[in-house]
């Protein structure tokens, strides 16, 4: 794919994310996204054949974005405890700086499974992100820093906790800024996972 085409593709994803977050997934149509980008609807369909396919591509994009950041953390020589804090920080920073990404994950991906049934089954579209979490856990256990337990028990505890906090933040129910919770939450996660 040419650079110009790839750049245009990225712009569509960014704009769609913004519109999904502000107007809701179901209320946003392909013509809305095209109009917002000064594109013809026909041209947008050249990039994404349907709204579902666009949504699936957005999910891969978010997984890749977070996966790349987690990979950088995994490749540092930090302890598991320090890595937990880095992961929490990255997640909350993303929620604050790119709120539409986490919003999409929580409000579109988790709530509209039918959109992702055909093409994003299981871990298919979130593979990059989940793989890095697996590597983080595996290395933590291997280094005897983390307790050996069922993967999904640990995964749910970690990601469910972070997702829940971002959701509460989005609902404006938290009494402090999200990043002020980083230390406490990192410690809680570490306490739950440590060997």
């Amino acid at each position, binding site marked *: 794919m040419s650079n110009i085409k790839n750049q245009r593709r990225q712009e569509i994803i960014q704009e769609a994310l913004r519109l999904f977050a502000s107007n809701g997934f179901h209320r946003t149509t392909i013509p809305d996204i095209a109009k917002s980008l000064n594109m013809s609807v026909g041209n947008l369909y050249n990039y994404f054949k349907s709204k579902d396919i666009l949504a699936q591509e957005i999910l891969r994009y978010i997984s890749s974005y977070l996966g790349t950041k987690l*990979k950088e953390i995994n490749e540092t020589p930090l302890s598991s405890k320090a890595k937990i804090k880095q992961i929490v920080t990255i997640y909350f920073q993303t929620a604050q700086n790119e709120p539409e990404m986490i919003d999409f994950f929580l409000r579109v991906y988790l709530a509209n499974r039918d959109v992702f049934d055909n093409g994003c*089954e*299981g*871990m*298919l579209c979130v*593979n*990059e992100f*989940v*793989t890095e979490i*697996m*590597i983080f*856990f*595996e290395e*933590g*256990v*291997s280094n005897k820093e*983390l307790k*050996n*337990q*069922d*993967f*999904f028990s*640990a995964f749910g505890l970690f990601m469910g906790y972070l997702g829940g906090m971002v959701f509460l933040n989005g609902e404006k129910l938290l009494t402090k800024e999200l990043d002020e919770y980083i230390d406490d939450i990192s410690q809680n996660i570490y306490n739950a996972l440590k060997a």
Partner: protein
Amino acid sequence: MIFHKIYTMHSKLDILWLSALACNGNAHSFLNYKDIDLFLQEFDFVYHPLLPSKYKLTDIANFKVECDILIIEGSIEKHHKIADTYLDEVISYYANMAKVIITLGTCASFGGIFAQYSQNISGLHYRQKEKLNHYNSFYNKTITLSGCPVHPETLVGTLYMIRDDTKLPIDEYNRPLYYYGYLVHNGCSRNEYFEYKIDKHNFGEVEGCSFYEHGCQGTYTHAPCNINLWSGVNSKTRAGQPCMGCSEPNFPATNLWETKKHMGIPAKLPYKIPKRAYLSLAGVAKTFTIERFSKRIFESDEKKDRVD
């Protein structure tokens, strides 16, 4: 590794088969070689523990014998005697004389099961992965054939290649790559179950992959077990028993029938496959439910059963 052609005054190469601390499993395995009569037309055993030989063990221990090839079977223990002579002296004498030495089996190569008993027991050049110096002057003329036991084709094929002056590429332990360049996983009849991460496996059944739950070491064990089948018909993994890594330096491991996992991820991954590559593919493969793999291979639709 290239051996210079062994020139002898006799038409056949003389092999001395020396048993150290051994169960003689390799000697028995060799007896299963399908063309042993043909082999014996081209090689002579000056001594073999089970076959008729030109000399007795006492002749060996009294240094009365000559050989071209020395095969050592079993682990080495410094104070072990054979026919009242220290094994160390016997090995040194004949190793010096031989053009080629073969450490046959994991005990002779890496210490194996016997080395679990004492720190003083080892292979000829290795104790597990640790390189030893005692017989170092013979290292460059040693070929390592590990396994418990070694497949007879591996031994006989290597001997023919030595006789024929064939170039013998080797690995870091001097094992010929023609045999040890393969993994037990290569040729395993369960590869599809591995590829699609079907972890349902029951001992003795032909379906499923035992890598995920039952400790199969085939993906990181170097041996041609599924290339050259045992007795020409089968292998452990095909028959339903996990590979126990018997040709590797750290054999025997503990908890052989259990896959050690870290948060559900196998602690030991296939040979030289990066963790990220393995986990990415595994995550994708596990996504799909493939109905064919949930069925027994020999279970057919009743209507199609045929009874003649």
